[in-house]
């Protein structure tokens, strides 16, 4: 063997070595999937016979004594059958002219011929598309009007989305890089959604349901508009109009417009108005959300989600660290000062929620899914909503889903949030309205690819930790999604940050600020350090300011990501009216 050949063989051996190390795949689950796909096909075939009893051109087997007559009858029936194509297909076929079948496009003919050959009507047709769309298993490119049958996985490409229309009139808008298949359920259609984002505009279901299934949750609807996101880390559902039931394991949650829920903290919430911005119908969706009356929302039977017992009173400011009686209290930006990160001020146990010395401003943010409102995203209301601090102690009724603190902070605790919303409406007489406005913020983009390294652990997320301790500041991200970094950057900068990196894995990185030192007690006569407690601006604020100044440069050098100034659409909650609560 020649030297070059030997080197090339070494390269091949080495190159494929990684594949030889692939862990085995769970074989039972894979076989179950094959059987499930087969069952779905059989179900749909037998269900088909009842519904499509006049199906044209059935496969026929001839029995009896008069085969020639029977054959002739079959041909006649087949010809009649073409004219009896189900209305949605015959209307599709005749839409472009009076000639019906002969005027149909090749794609429309494909829909009809597939239907006749398989005796199964496609579950959906491609209504429109902005980019490529593939039938994955066979690598076939789908065009407008192509039919999509049960159990066929389809995928949009990176350059644009597509809209599918189901037979009941429901529409599925798929974002770019999204993947799904359709299956027949016992009482409707199931969208098995594996990756990306979709907005489902569910038509009124006469007898059944439309289901959306991801790997870790199921959504059932009877007529509504909602968004579903699915990725490696989990799934998120957000409601634009109507009501949605979300089943996660053994629990079912009801969601209303503007509300959302995720299966993992790796998918931090963004306001629904921002989540739908990619849709070609974003304006209509936003208009629907703006029409929504905010509080109070009712649950089954018209009952309100309420705390069992709730006490609200003015907080004891004497106990506030670093405050003297009479000191003005002001709302600081969240960095280092997000009040919910201080355990002595915020406790959430399965039956109890305690928050101390908290301005109503933050309480509103928490109730509406934004625990640290970026500048300008919660406006209006008198000054006391930002300066007067309240203590809240509430008993959570039995049967409420057990939310974690992280879920509540990231806007993923819908029932608990509704209890807070109703408490604010009852005790503070709070009235809010929702608006969308463009504000100065940042797009988080990739400036230099390849600097970020995927974490070895792609399963768990850890909250960013300020690991600087005394003498230095450093924030470590371990197995963190980029969405978490974006949220943290939003807290640090006080401006909305939109993640436009398209990165979906978990990453390890560390932002270090050796230039900034925590103030440490200095011996008498020692030179005064730059930041000292007791300066006009508090030392915590001074550190925050320095972090903000250094952040863009540190971020790009460490991660290759850049914050670019941009006007971004944000959801703004406007306080229309609010009153001081009476003591209870």
């Amino acid at each position: 063997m020649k030297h070059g050949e030997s080197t090339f063989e070494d390269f091949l051996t080495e190159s494929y070595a990684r594949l030889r190390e692939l862990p085995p795949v769970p074989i039972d689950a894979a076989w179950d999937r094959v059987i499930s796909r087969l069952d779905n096909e059989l179900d749909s075939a037998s269900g088909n016979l009842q519904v499509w009893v006049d199906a044209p051109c059935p496969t026929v087997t001839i029995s009896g004594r008069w085969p020639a007559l029977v054959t002739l009858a079959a041909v006649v029936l087949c010809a009649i059958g073409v004219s009896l194509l189900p209305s949605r297909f015959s209307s599709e076929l005749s839409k472009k002219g009076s000639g019906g079948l002969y005027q149909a496009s090749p794609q429309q003919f494909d829909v009809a011929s597939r239907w006749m050959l398989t005796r199964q009507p496609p579950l959906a047709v491609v209504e429109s598309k902005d980019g490529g769309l593939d039938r994955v298993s066979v690598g076939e490119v789908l065009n407008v009007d192509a039919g999509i049958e049960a159990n066929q996985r389809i995928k949009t490409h990176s350059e644009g989305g597509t809209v599918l229309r189901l037979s009941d009139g429901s529409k599925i808008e798929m974002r770019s890089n999204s993947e799904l298949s359709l299956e027949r359920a016992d009482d409707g259609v199931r969208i098995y959604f594996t990756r990306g984002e979709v907005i489902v505009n569910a038509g009124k279901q006469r007898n059944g349901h439309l289901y959306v299934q991801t790997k870790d949750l199921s959504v059932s609807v009877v007529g509504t508009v909602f968004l579903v996101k699915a990725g490696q880390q989990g799934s998120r559902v957000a409601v634009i109009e109507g009501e949605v039931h979300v089943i996660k394991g053994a629990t079912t949650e009801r969601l209303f417009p503007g509300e959302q829920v995720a299966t993992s903290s790796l998918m931090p919430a963004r306001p629904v108005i921002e989540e739908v911005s990619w849709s070609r119908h974003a304006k209509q969706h936003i208009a629907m959300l703006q029409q929504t009356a905010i509080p109070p929302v009712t649950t089954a039977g018209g009952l309100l989600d309420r705390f069992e017992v709730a006490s609200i009173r003015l907080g004891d400011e004497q106990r506030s660290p670093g405050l003297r009686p009479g000191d003005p209290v002001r709302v600081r930006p969240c960095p280092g000062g997000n009040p919910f990160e201080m355990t002595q001020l915020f406790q959430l146990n399965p039956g109890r929620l305690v928050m101390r010395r908290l301005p109503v401003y933050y309480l509103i943010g928490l109730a509406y899914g934004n625990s640290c409102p970026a500048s300008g995203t919660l406006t209006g209301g008198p000054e006391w909503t930002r300066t007067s601090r309240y203590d809240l102690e509430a008993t959570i009724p039995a049967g409420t889903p057990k939310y974690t603190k992280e879920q509540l902070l990231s806007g993923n605790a819908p029932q608990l949030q509704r209890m807070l919303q109703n408490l604010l409406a009852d005790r503070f007489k709070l009235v809010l309205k929702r608006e969308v406005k463009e504000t100065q913020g940042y797009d988080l983009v990739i400036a230099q690819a390849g600097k970020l390294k995927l974490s070895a652990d792609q399963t768990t997320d850890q909250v960013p930790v300020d690991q600087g301790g005394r003498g230095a500041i450093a924030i470590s991200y371990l197995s963190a999604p980029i969405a978490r970094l974006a949220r943290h950057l939003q807290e640090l900068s006080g401006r909305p940050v939109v993640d436009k990196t398209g990165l979906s894995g978990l990453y390890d990185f560390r932002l270090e600020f050796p230039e900034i030192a925590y103030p440490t007690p200095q011996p008498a006569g020692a030179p005064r350090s730059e930041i000292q407690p007791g300066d006009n601006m508090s030392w915590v604020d001074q550190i925050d300011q320095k972090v903000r100044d250094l952040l863009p440069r540190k971020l790009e050098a460490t991660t290759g990501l850049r914050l670019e100034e941009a006007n971004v659409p944000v959801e703004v909650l406007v306080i229309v009216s609010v009153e001081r609560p009476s003591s209870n």
Partner: protein
Amino acid sequence: MFDMAVADAPDSALQREVEQLFRDNYQMLFRTAYSILRNREDAEDVPQAIFLKLLRTGVSPDVGKNASGYLYRAVVNQSLSILRSRKRQPATNSAELLNAPVHADESSTNERRHQRLYEAMGGLAPEAVHILLLRYVHNYSDAQIAKLLGTSRGAVALRLYRSRARLRKHMQSLEKDNETR
């Protein structure tokens, strides 16, 4: 007078036979599809679709003689067909590539070469891919390859040499194309 031909459930003997084939071959077939497609979901889908077809149509006697060889060839051919349809896409899904496992110590040059290998493999004839994957992904000996593909050891050695040469040439031409861009 008409009996509508409804798709029947496979009989239990057929289902047992196909399940046994599935259990014997699925790991190898998944790895094969993954080595071509580099996407876990697609790699799971390809062999599953082939077994689904077997459940629908039954295992013909020709298939039964060398079922592993038939399944392996079917998976390679189907995966190549998907890979080629992907090439018609105007843009690459960068997010997916970024999420592919990358060893921290790998240089970008090496990574580019691996990427070129992946592209070049998609441009080879299926017969060349059959033999190359068996040797380098599955680490099969000449004798094992000959048994699976139903040929002689001598033919395997010759085809392996030619396939490797074609792959190398194809990679070089891709590199040249890239340099001239």
